[in-house]
């Protein structure tokens, strides 16, 4: 790896650990190519899509947010009954060499026939292996560019640039990583409380005065899972298929102009079949624990990264 061309630190560059450097040209940065707003009004089944064309010639990385009915913005990527009140409704994005497509799929849909608003960020950075030429028009004459190792900065492709002032970059706002812990108590259903639903949340007040682009994660065992959590969507779907005999666990991250909120929703449904089967057809006395799966008490570490991008700010070209 080459040595830094430049770096900007809060303190003394000679003593600051790398993590505290605001900018370090040894590493590439995410470059925003286009950003803007899109809307979808799904059909009566909740199905719909919107295409945002691009001229990159490869499938780019992107970030996608949807405005929730409560006015918050949430990253798009998985089914979320907590966000939309419909666990079978799915909103997601896909990109290819020509476009970013935002798509809704209905299910029992709360999405049907209602306009949904989105904010998209298409990045110069690739989401697939690609070695060809992009169609990015280079019309500007002034700026700064840094290329990857062994790439001629005057001849390389734009996706080979570690940074370029042609593009907006995703920049952290203040402290770039903030962590909190959230304690969730034991939760279960019982004969006399057969469908328990519990929601808890933790707020991060960002003080920006506008809804910022953010990324959120939560600890699950020894792993850190990004929100939205696609793996969870499958779990949630199976809940529906099996008529909700099993527990569910859902997390949503959303922001407005004041805060980023990470909200956990746990559900524990009384399992009548299991109850009857394990007791030879006789009922347990009221209060007996017999939910299919209990939620054990746990302390969850949640992490957010807040960026300077305004999800309700101007769009590209304005």
């Amino acid at each position, binding site marked *: 790896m*080459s040595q830094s061309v430049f770096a900007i630190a809060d303190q003394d560059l000679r003593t600051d650990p790398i993590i505290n450097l605001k900018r370090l040209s040894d590493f590439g940065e995410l470059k925003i190519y286009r950003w803007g707003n899109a809307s979808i009004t799904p059909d009566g089944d909740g199905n719909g899509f919107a295409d945002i064309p691009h001229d990159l010639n490869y499938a780019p990385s992107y970030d996608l947010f949807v405005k929730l009915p409560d006015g918050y913005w949430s990253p798009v990527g998985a089914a979320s009954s907590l966000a939309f009140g419909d666990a079978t409704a799915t909103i997601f994005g896909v990109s290819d060499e020509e476009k970013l497509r935002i798509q809704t799929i209905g299910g029992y849909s709360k999405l049907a026939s209602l306009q949904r608003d989105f904010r998209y960020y298409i990045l110069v950075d690739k989401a697939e292996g690609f070695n060809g030429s992009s169609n990015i028009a280079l019309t500007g004459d002034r700026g700064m*560019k*840094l290329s990857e190792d*062994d*790439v*001629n*900065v005057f001849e390389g492709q734009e996706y080979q640039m570690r940074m370029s*002032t042609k593009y907006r970059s995703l920049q952290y706002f203040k402290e770039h990583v903030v962590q909190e812990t959230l304690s969730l108590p034991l939760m279960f259903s019982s004969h006399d409380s057969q469908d328990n639903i519990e929601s808890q949340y933790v707020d991060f007040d960002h003080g920006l005065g506008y809804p910022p682009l953010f990324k959120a994660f939560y600890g699950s065992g020894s792993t850190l899972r990004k929100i939205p959590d696609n793996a969870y969507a499958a779990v949630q779907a199976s809940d529906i298929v099996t008529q909700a005999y099993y527990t569910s666990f859902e997390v949503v991250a959303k922001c407005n102009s004041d805060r980023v909120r990470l909200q956990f929703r746990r559900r524990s449904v009384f399992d009548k079949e299991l109850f009857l089967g394990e007791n030879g057809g006789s009922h347990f006395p009221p209060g007996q624990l017999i939910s299919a799966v209990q939620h054990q008490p746990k302390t969850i570490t949640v992490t957010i990264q807040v960026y300077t991008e305004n999800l309700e700010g101007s769009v590209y070209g304005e």
Partner: protein
Amino acid sequence: MATIMPTMSSPRSADQELITQFVSGEMPLGQRIGGLSMFSAEFKRGSGNQVFGSNSKGIWLGAANFEDAPFRVSMDGKIYLQIESGALVIDANGITQFDENGVPVGFWGIRTGMF
């Protein structure tokens, strides 16, 4: 021996000037005094790589010759800053960073159709 007078149309190298015979009553064409070499086409002060010099290519500091110097300024106004792992070239258009293999990997300035 005839005196060789340098002219603009036939400049002589520093070495040529040094072997040019001195003519009493005239300024010598070139001089070496200690670590100082002065000729009309080249000036050097110092020894080894601890040299400050100038010639038709420009001025330099830190090497015996212009091409090897870690700091040099060419006659067309380019500033070269060079270390083992790369170099910076600064001119009126901007700053260009080169890696250790001479590949330009960074640019900051004005260049038509680059951004």
